[in-house]
């Protein structure tokens, strides 16, 4: 079947298999930030935004995204670098495999709620597993990023 999906602002038109998952569609188009870590929707490494909402790209058919807009980390690199620097200050990106998903979900959180409490942050990011960091350093990075954003006077 033919689909037309906007990926990071660029329309991709392609003939695809009916059961192709969005993650495989994206990776085949060079969006290698999108990672597969499990097959049961638990790990969140494949998180992208579908029409601005964070979703699991391993949990949706590419066909279903026909006519819709998808954003991957490749589409928000500047924002990722800005926030990622705070993770890096804590060395909390570690192996980095979960970082793209974590960053996509965190940015989504902050656009929904610019000043979340640590508990709200943990709950929102529950779908992003990380096995390296113990989460603590990532939480420090996120909180420092939020504080820095506030200092900048901008919205997080």
């Amino acid at each position, binding site marked *: 079947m033919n689909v037309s999906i906007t990926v990071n602002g660029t329309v991709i038109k392609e003939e695809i298999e009916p059961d192709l998952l969005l993650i495989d569609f994206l990776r085949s188009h060079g969006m290698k930030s999108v990672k597969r870590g499990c097959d049961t*929707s638990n790990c969140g490494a494949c998180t992208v935004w579908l029409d601005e909402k964070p979703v699991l790209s391993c949990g949706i058919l590419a066909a279903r995204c026909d006519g819709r807009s998808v954003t991957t980390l490749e589409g928000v690199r500047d924002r990722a670098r800005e926030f990622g620097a705070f993770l890096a200050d804590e060395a909390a990106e570690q192996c980095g495999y979960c970082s793209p998903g974590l960053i996509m979900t965190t940015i989504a959180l902050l656009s929904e709620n610019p000043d979340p409490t640590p508990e709200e942050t943990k709950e929102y990011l529950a779908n992003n597993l990380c096995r390296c960091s113990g989460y603590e350093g990532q939480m420090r990075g996120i909180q420092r990023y939020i504080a820095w954003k506030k200092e900048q006077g901008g919205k997080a």
Partner: protein
Amino acid sequence: MFTAGQYIRAKSLEEAYSLHKKGTCILGGMQWLKMGQGFYSKVIDLSDLNLSGITDEGDSYLVGAMTPLREMEESRELSSLTSGAMKEALRHIVGVQFRNLATLGGTVAGKYGFSDVLTMLLVLDSTVVLYPDEELPLANYLEEPLGNRIVTGVRIRKENLSCRYASMRNTETDLPTLTCAMAKGDGGIRLAIGARPQIAKILTFPEGVSSDEMTGTALSSLSFSSNLRGSEDYRRHLAKVLIRRCWESMEGGEQ
């Protein structure tokens, strides 16, 4: 992951219904579906049928089948109707990204034993809206085969309610070991216990019933069994604890 011969985005419910034969599948949020290895000659997507969203119909809310669980969780209307219990029932389900995809229709049509959503909906006055034209009380719907009918939504009647929801999970976002919903509304107290691990069932009690009486009835009339998440005995024990906690919180008027 399942395999599909064809993906069809239905243009009408009529079309979806006519396509929905043996070996085909209606797509909900497909979060649980994709964990299976099934083969479907056709997967039918209802995304274009305006079935997503919560509509205030005056005396009830109609929640469309394609409404993501996350939208229900965030709904102020559902939250105020259920004294916040709806949110509590939903927020432990895997994670935000998961709940942005998983739909009410998928959950209702899947009739999953571990479903928090079904446990919660059972204690509300809710009916399942089906195509072709039919509307069944949720409890009745759960007892009969769905056949090739299509779940188009759930209608939740507005009423003056006090609600509680509690679940036990081995980790915060694990499938529940036991679920418990309680509502005090017109005509008494309704109690639903799910993830036993069988599908949730509802029991009703007159107003003024004690926690012990409810527990006694629940333990004697519901079946409990064992799986990876807990043994039958543990589930029976948890039922006592969760029923009492919901009841005490409701009677004590805690929010």
